[in-house]
């Protein structure tokens, strides 16, 4: 049975414990950043930032809202990146059947910059990044090292509010439906994102466009931008 994340953005306080803990566990260095008029930093996912909390403030129906979105690879059940990668460099993207984790291997080095662009553009969530120094293509690996040793991913471990949960897919599905029903009472626009086709289910209280461009991926051939 596959494992899934359930990321309940209605519980997220954007403390960025997940973002920092991810770097810490994986030994990824900080990158130079600047204040650009937003708390979101780094500005985007990059080869050294595989988990990023996105910030978006809006006025919706006269009310100020501030949405937080702990972004990461969704671990698609049928990952489009893998279809491309299988052609470009067999074995560079593999699926761990036990957990459902989609893992990029050292073989990704064999994929050219153009090939990488192809992978990235087919990803509905704009996740893959390429390390220009090593040529490796990188993203969240579900902390496969931890999970295969009975631990939960570092982001879920670090989350103080229970916004990032991780467990058996069935359990996460049930939990996400239960929370959705609760949240819908106060936020009729609430919905679950990437539920059926990935192993990272997000609960949002507003339309996905109020979170970020790639929040819900592609639905019916269209992206909510």
């Amino acid at each position, binding site marked *: 049975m596959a494992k899934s994340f359930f990321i309940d953005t*209605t*519980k997220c*306080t*954007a*403390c*960025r*414990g997940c*973002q*920092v803990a991810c*770097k*810490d566990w994986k030994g990824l*260095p*900080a*990158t*130079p*950043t*600047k*204040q*650009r*008029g*937003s*708390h979101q*930093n*780094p500005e985007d996912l990059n080869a050294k930032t595989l988990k990023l909390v996105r910030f978006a*403030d*809006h*006025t919706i129906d006269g009310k*100020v*809202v*501030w*949405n*937080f979105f702990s972004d990461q690879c969704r671990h698609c059940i049928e990952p489009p990146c893998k279809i491309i990668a299988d052609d470009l460099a067999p074995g560079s993207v593999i699926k761990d059947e036990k957990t459902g984790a989609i893992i990029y291997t050292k073989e990704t080095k064999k994929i050219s910059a153009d090939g990488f662009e192809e992978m990235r553009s087919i990803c509905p969530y704009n996740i893959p990044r390429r390390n220009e120094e090593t040529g490796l293509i990188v993203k969240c690996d579900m902390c496969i090292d931890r999970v295969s040793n009975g631990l939960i991913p570092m982001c879920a471990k670090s989350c*103080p*509010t*229970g916004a990032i949960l991780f467990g058996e897919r069935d359990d996460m599905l049930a939990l996400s439906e239960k929370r959705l029903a*609760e949240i819908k009472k106060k936020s009729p626009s609430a919905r679950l994102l990437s539920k059926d086709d990935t192993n990272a289910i997000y609960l949002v209280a507003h339309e996905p466009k109020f979170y970020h461009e790639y929040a819900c991926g592609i639905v019916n051939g269209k992206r909510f931008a």
Partner: protein
Amino acid sequence: MTNHYIDIKNADVVFIMGSNAAEHHPISFKWAMRAKEERNATIVHVDPKFSRTSARSDLHVPLRSGTDIAFLGGMIKYILENELYFKEYVTEYTNASFIVNEKFSFNDGVFSGLDAVNRKYDRSTWTMETDESGIPKKDKTFAHERCVLNMLKKHYSRYTLDVVSDITGVSKENLVKVYDTMGATGKPNKAGTMLYALGWTQHTVGVQNIRACAMIQLLLGNIGIAGGGVNALRGEPNVQGSTDHALLYHIIPGYLAVPNTNWLTLEDYLKANTPVSKDPMSANWWSNTPKYMVSLLKSWYGSAATKENDFGYKWIPKNDAGADYSFMYLYDKMLKGQVKGGFVWATNPAQSLPNTNKIRKAMSNLDWLCVAETNHTESSDFWRGPGMDPKKIKTEVFLLASAHRLEKDGSISNSGRWLLWHNQAVPPQGDSRAMGDSIVGIINSVRALYKKDGGVCPEPLLNLDWPEKYDPDAMARNINGYFLEDVTIDGKQYKKGSLVPSFAMLQADGTTSCRVWVYAGSYTDADGNKAKKRDATQTPMQKKIGLFPNWSWCWPVNRRIIYNRASVDLNGKPWDPERAVIEWDGEKWIGDVPDGAWPPMATGKGKYPFIMQKEGHGQLFGPGRVDGPFPEHYEPVETPIKKHSLSSQLSNPCAKILSSDMDPLAAPGDERFPIVLTTYNMTEHWCGGGETRNTPALLEAEPQLYVEMSPQLAQEKGIKNGDPVVVTSARGRVEAIAMVTVRITPFKVMGKTVHLIGMPFAFGWTTPGCGDSTNRLTVSAGDPNTTIPEYKACCVNIEKATKVTELSI
């Protein structure tokens, strides 16, 4: 906190004001969200800016910084007028029925007894009428016009929705929404908690902000109960522990007053600090002061302290009576060349104190400075800071490399007063040492010099009971205290050398020692160091309210919710059986450790529940503060308005205001500085940022100083999101990056638009290009009770920068 973090989940309403709980105390907010999830609680956030806390609250209400008392005074009026208060609780457990001295008065913003020149009140009329035995007179029918309840109604009658809205900038609709929500918790089966932090304390009316909160919680019967309380959120800087251990100048350990020149003998001291109540129903806990003081003296001076020499009382340095030794005054003296040298332990004054330009200048007047730190900071390195010429700085600076807290054993007291032991994770790097280790070593060296060469005033040093080596475990035992002789108490014998099991056993005759009386019982012969306990066992009753009596240990005497006898009626039955904290089972109290084991009040053998107050009642009329028995709205020392509609007294008549050449103030309504600045911190950086700016992943997440501002102000000033800007006050200029956001809104105040901006204070020049101290803008003015600086409100202007030198852009 009167309560503790887990207890927040028991609340029906979580009222957060003066705090950004989600960002600064993330774990507290976990429980706030648990309350929302499990009992459909409402989270209300009243704060100048929309923060990450507001994002997860049901209602965010923006309020002009520095107007909390107007807001809370309006709530008091609303609660009284609509009779939302908990009548039985208010009648029995607060001083609502007490009769106020007829000479007490309040007129146009000022209480009776003001000496306006010396900015002090003569408080002799702020008293209660007493009967022939000296017991306060009470009128439980509330017919007497001078009973506290009626005085309260009169005082806050001016705080109408219109007036409050005009001053605070909060819409009347929002006022009523909040007042109704919180007011609904005045029922026996409802609980509301109030969470606050520096957003309330850092004002020239800081203490009265908290008083107002306590009064509301008393009116609503929310103190002592599960899901209630007056809850100061405290965290990683160990403010709770360091206050218990007397970090500040006005107290010695255990909240005992610091000796001063009015009290030259132990007898004088004890007389002045041991209140006497004539009411047999009042426990008057501070009547135990002599036991705590003498045990402290024995702990400090050991066998050198004898009855004959006042247990060494004369060796304690005495403050000049009435003098203020707080940071702002200390650095003021330093600026004037009256301080020659000193130690800075684990704080960053050149970054974190108000009017930092002055602080930095003052430091350069020192002959020597010793800084104990884990990182180079703006203080340790002030001599090479911006505008400083190291060749011209005479100060000799020593840096004591200090171990990080993960590199040492020790304890931290959390917000809920739990004493938690932490273990060394890794040994200290290089030559760095735990601060306790440094202090023990330094004092031993000084003692050795005194022994060898002699010196002035040797007794305080040489008579200290001082260890050879620093040992955290031995220190923990000292804090708990020992029997120094074989002692028999209530027929039970305690052996010399054994640890005291509780502060109830402390003696005033020199037969016990205890370094901090509230921690007596934390380390016993029977159970060892209770700060190490991690046992989740609980009774079903305790489980209902998330009370874990065997997990760590909590002061006092492991009581998790203080004043908990106010959670039951006169018969000892919980007001809310579903959230019972304690209950009288006919023979004893069950549940939490009660505030005293006396039977319920109705038996006639009970004691009033507010045992720390002389008369045992929660104080709606509170004569203990220097600036008034009722909180009154005053503007911050720097205010964008010239007058307000509650009185002609513009600012706190007792506020402490420094007046050096480097302390200019903007006049009220000064057109040069029309914008309110409030300062704060964020999740990613800790205090002045000395540690976290040296933690790469945190600096990556929050790399540079920013200023949050409304789109309306940005448009007025021609500033775009991400533009570098310059913020100026009468005291300094600071560069920052504009963060233009709908999360900040302009306020309508006294008929005009007032803009507010907000800036963090964590960025300093030792981290290149990140900006420099925001506190170069803030004022040297403080609360008259505590001298805590008014960091939260001052007046500034903001312009787009043409050139920046402090920021990498």
